[in-house]
């Protein structure tokens, strides 16, 4: 019988970090992540973990310390949000380029300005091209489960890449929910012992990390990085299945909800998927054939699975909680629409921006998005590709 506790998302991840017992954690507090690192610091001070906890003066330093510790051969974790993630920017690319399996929890929060501490996905979406694996969580349970799986995915010898596991700031990070936790021993056995590849502390085999890399080799190194992240999909799937065998909670790259016979669907990330389930149940009661595609894995983008899930549909509403200013739609819309270009049949796709700066989204908003998508399909013409939910005109 699994142990059930009341945890908010931050507590769930801090508890996962305690069970993972990483060699090094370097972090700087930033709302809404602070609660997570604070709890982990308590585990350190109570002697419940063996981790070296490095308090740093900024997120740039936090990621730099993580890179150093991971290159030295340690199992390394951190956590951040919003402007903190933005301050890590250049180091994110370096961590990925050096193929260091750092696991970072990010509580998604709007980027300034103006200053806003609430949820949207601008922070991690901005970092989507940095070479990190990017997993979204729908609730505290998934934040806990994804954190444990992230260690195993990142450290797989076919992967060796950093991962960010995200949860929606406040909506998940500060809401207490029912969370099933594993035994310490189960987590320890699941993740196994870590062995760094080319550790700097192996004095008999000296290595150089991050040498100058000019026009003769930089391009080839980037090509091998492209290959590395593309090859992660089967590993993420395998680890999700193994985690299912352990916990009873199976994980895939994406999850369909009432999608089998659906004609219309919403595509969403994070906690909004929970809201979407409500909306879909309500529309189904009215006889509408609607469903949800939840994107758990955003990077690498599971193109084949997206085509398979969405191609049979008539219309899709893609919900974006962040903007790519000046782009044709939000980050999720752009990816989904691009993937479907080669699909055997192409559904109509509308992009809905919503929830910026923590603006609430309600089941009625999602119902409206699905209804509008149906109208567009029936009209046979898309007049407006981009629309907004919950915005005052």
């Amino acid at each position: 019988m699994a142990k059930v506790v009341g945890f908010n998302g931050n507590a769930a991840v801090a508890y996962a970090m305690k069970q993972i017992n990483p060699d090094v954690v370097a972090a700087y507090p930033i709302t809404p992540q602070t609660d997570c690192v604070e709890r982990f610091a308590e585990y350190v001070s109570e002697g419940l973990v063996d981790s070296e906890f490095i308090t740093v003066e900024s997120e740039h330093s936090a990621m730099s310390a993580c890179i150093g510790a991971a290159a030295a051969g340690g199992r390394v974790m951190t956590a951040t949000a919003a402007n903190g993630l933005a301050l890590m920017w250049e180091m994110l690319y370096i961590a990925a380029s050096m193929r260091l399996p750092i696991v970072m929890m990010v509580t998604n929060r709007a980027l300034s300005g103006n200053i806003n501490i609430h949820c949207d996905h601008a922070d991690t979406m901005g970092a989507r091209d940095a070479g990190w694996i990017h997993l979204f969580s729908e609730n505290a349970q998934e934040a806990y489960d994804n954190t444990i799986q992230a260690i195993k995915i990142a450290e797989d010898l076919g992967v060796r890449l950093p991962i960010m596991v995200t949860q929606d700031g406040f909506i998940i990070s500060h809401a207490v929910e029912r969370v099933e936790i594993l035994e310490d021993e189960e987590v320890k056995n699941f993740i196994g012992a870590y062995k760094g590849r080319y550790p700097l502390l192996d004095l008999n085999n000296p290595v150089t990390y991050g040498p100058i890399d000019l026009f003769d080799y930089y391009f080839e190194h980037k090509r091998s990085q492209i290959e590395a992240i593309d090859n992660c999909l089967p590993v993420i799937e395998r680890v999700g299945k193994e985690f299912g065998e352990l916990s009873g909670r199976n994980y895939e790259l994406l999850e369909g909800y009432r999608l089998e016979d659906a004609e219309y669907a919403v595509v969403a990330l994070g906690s909004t998927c929970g809201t979407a389930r409500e909306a879909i149940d309500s529309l189904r009661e009215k006889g509408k054939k609607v469903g949800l595609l939840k994107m758990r894995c955003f990077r690498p983008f599971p193109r084949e699975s997206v085509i398979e899930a969405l191609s049979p549909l008539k219309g899709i509403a893609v919900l974006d909680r962040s903007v790519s200013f000046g782009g044709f739609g939000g980050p999720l819309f752009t990816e989904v629409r691009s993937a479907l270009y080669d699909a055997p049949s192409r559904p109509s796709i509308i992009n809905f921006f919503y929830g910026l700066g923590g603006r609430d989204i309600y089941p009625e908003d999602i119902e409206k998005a699905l209804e509008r998508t149906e109208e567009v399909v029936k009209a046979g013409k898309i007049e407006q590709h981009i629309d907004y939910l919950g915005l005052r005109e």
Partner: protein
Amino acid sequence: MSELKGWKELVPGGLIVEAGNAKEYKTGDWRTEKPELNPEKCIHCFFCWAYCPDNAVIVDAEAGKMLAFNYDYCKGCGICAAACPAKGAITMVPER
């Protein structure tokens, strides 16, 4: 440079996993000018050897002779020619 490798042959993360390999990087091809030695004018004072920042002057220490330049690593900075007290022993000429 020696033969360039394709992307599939590279160490993950762009690491250098062997020590002491700086000598494999032939920095001589950075040169736009190169020093030329006129052995008849050289007084074998070893000033060029002492001043060369790239250790690219080949000498026979026991015989007390300056022999040649190592063009694999000489970057053509011209410090040897400037330091040379024997006028005309080292001349900088354009690299072709």
